[in-house]
């Protein structure tokens, strides 16, 4: 293809990517190094508010916005370097935790960022093999059942993936909360009281279970498609050579599916590192938080309308850096395969 033609085909997509991906990204990066604050004067004024049976008046110190000539409150933006990152990562507290008087890792995990990082990373790495393994297992199972029933089975298997994540998480929560039907059933069987949402580890297990249930169908569909392209001659040759079912899986099927396994790994790492819906759906923030939730929490205005945009920008930059670090080994492997293959 001529370069001119290529450029014309690619230009619209490049333009949109610059506009909707690169520009916001740069603006978040910029915001994470700056603080924007309103300019206020303080004054002591009399404030009267309603009470039962009459007004209550008190002298109060109030912040009064300084208006510019258009009558709009002024703000000032200052460059603060790495200050915001420092307030999120708290290097001094980490150093103090590992000094003689600190409690080591326990103190570190008490800092929001590291608490979220701990969960996000363990969540990512525990769900990864489960999703890949379960996806492969379902694909193999579906592949070996009679062709007549395959259609309906595939459809039913895909259902968890179609459900909106928040709705799915809420449904699982309602099944397992204090008087949810599954908890009551389990209580009957085990003959003891259960409170799955009362401690961190049970919530974490529920979140893991939910995510694997939710994404395994995605892995399944990809693997199932891959299974259809296996060279039947190789398969038959393996049978003639006396390879067992497991050996055929190990030496024929898995090597054939390897690029797809890498693809699933790549997508899964990117997705799970941004775990968020489960935290909201399970209202787990007292026990378990994730990096993406931390950003969301900074961005949510409190009653008095304040939101911490700079901290939110810093945590989202850090989340992105985390994803890139996770992806590097997988990307290198893909690149190597690609070069060998090419």
């Amino acid at each position, binding site marked *: 293809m001529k370069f001119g033609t290529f450029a014309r085909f690619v230009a619209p997509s490049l333009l949109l990517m610059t506009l909707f991906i690169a520009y916001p990204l740069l603006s978040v990066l910029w915001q994470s190094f700056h603080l924007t604050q309103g300019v206020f004067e303080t004054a002591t004024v009399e404030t009267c508010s309603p009470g039962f049976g009459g007004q209550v008046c008190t002298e109060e110190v109030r912040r009064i916005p300084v208006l510019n000539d258009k009558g709009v409150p002024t703000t000032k933006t200052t460059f603060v370097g790495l200050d915001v990152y420092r307030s999120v990562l708290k290097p001094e507290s980490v150093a103090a935790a590992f000094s003689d008087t600190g409690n080591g890792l326990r103190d570190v995990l008490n800092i929001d960022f590291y608490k979220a990082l701990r969960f996000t990373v363990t969540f990512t790495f525990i769900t990864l093999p489960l999703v890949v393994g379960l996806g492969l297992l379902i694909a193999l199972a579906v592949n070996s059942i009679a062709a007549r029933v395959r259609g309906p089975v595939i459809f039913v298997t895909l259902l968890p993936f179609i459900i909106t994540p928040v709705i799915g998480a809420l449904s699982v929560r309602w099944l397992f909360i204090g008087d949810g039907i599954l908890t009551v059933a389990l209580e009957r069987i085990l003959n003891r009281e259960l409170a799955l949402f009362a401690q961190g580890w049970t919530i974490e297990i529920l979140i893991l279970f939910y995510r694997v249930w939710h994404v395994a169908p995605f892995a399944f569909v990809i693997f199932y498609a891959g299974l259809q392209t296996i060279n039947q001659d190789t398969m038959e040759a393996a049978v003639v050579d006396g390879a067992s079912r497991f050996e055929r899986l190990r030496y024929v099927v898995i090597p054939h599916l390897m690029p797809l396994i890498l693809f699933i790994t790549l997508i899964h790492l990117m997705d799970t590192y941004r775990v968020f819906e489960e935290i909201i759906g399970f209202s787990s923030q*007292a*026990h378990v938080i994730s990096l993406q939730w931390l950003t969301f929490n900074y961005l949510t205005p409190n*009653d008095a309308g304040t939101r911490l945009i700079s901290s939110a920008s810093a945590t989202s930059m850090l989340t992105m850096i985390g994803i890139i670090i996770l992806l590097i080994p997988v990307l290198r492997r893909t690149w190597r395969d690609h070069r060998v293959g090419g």
Partner: protein
Amino acid sequence: MKLKSIALVTALAFASGITGAHAAECSLENDTEVKLLANSFVAWKAIADTMTNCGNFQADLDTEFREKQPAGMAADPAIYQIGGVSNSTIVPLLEGDIIRPLNDLVEKYGGTLNPGQLIKIDGNVMAVAFMVNDQHFMYRQDIFDELGLSVPTTYDEVLEVAAKIQDSGSVKYALGGTYKAGWNVAEEFVNMYLGLGGSFLDADNKPTVNTDKGAQALTMMKALTEYMDPEYLTADSTFVASQFQRGDIAMANLWSSRAGNVNDPAESTVAGKITMAAAPLAEAGGRPASSLWWDGFVFAKNMTDEQAEAAFRLALEGISERTVSENNDEAVWIANGFTPGPAAAGAIATAETGAVPYPSSTAMGLMHTALGDNITDFLTGRESAEQALKDVESAYTTAAKEAGIL
């Protein structure tokens, strides 16, 4: 997409929870387009329905109103002419210079208002309140009678009574509490700490919660959780009200705006058995563990004076004597037409025993968030009270520096 689904689920949950609001007739012909953005609960629904009867009016009742309100009312011209606020959500509107003083409108049309309804800042009327809200004690009269218990007036007595009820086995859990991590559990701490006479911030907005009183408040909260559903950290006021309605709990310190709800025969299996009393004192000789809130109207700066006039008259129609008397038990109204009934008894008794207003300010908003994010570590047993309060102060300080308060 994700956030939309969350908002939708919340909206559905609340829409289905709103029952019992009665729209009153409107005696006014409104011909100016006016829009309202307010929180979503029964009283607002009744008011908005009445205002809708006047014509050319549209209400947006949304529990996430605080996210939309500052921008929606600051637009020029304002997207929402009328806003519904409480004593804490008015703060960003005042600090953004978004709402207009109402002195002339009150003078012209406000003949029906009580002086107690006007929120005045530096002599200017900035908002018109119509109801007050606080958290107070609700208990199952039948269980208390059966066990021969008297109504506790301090939290130490609450613990004693709770132990007796738990032993009797008449309910699943003796106590309920709005201890959901985040805003709710922070509000419980605020109430208890105010009851002990604690202060959150000093004159320079530096945090002052890591004190003996702070630790005392937390210790009491933890002692109370022993008698609650172990999943108390997910319990918001809707959940606690439904625990009452299902007969799962015998007592709770709950919002007065839920008082009508728990005794509603259409929803409650124990309708009529729940009695309202004053919030217990945080300690003997202290204040009630509660804070006073109000809800009211504000009006955008960015609209024409004609629009403001129409909006103001419409709002007054919404809180007319008729609306108030037809929805008497749905709120503790301070507008004319209210006859305090048994549902309001607890709220009024709490105020009379000395509860103080919620100390709203920008700094307090940050403090509230810091509390909500950090005190749960103590309740779950991960940290000591001192460590949890230290974390609160450090989280507050970080946020306050970023917000430009410190």
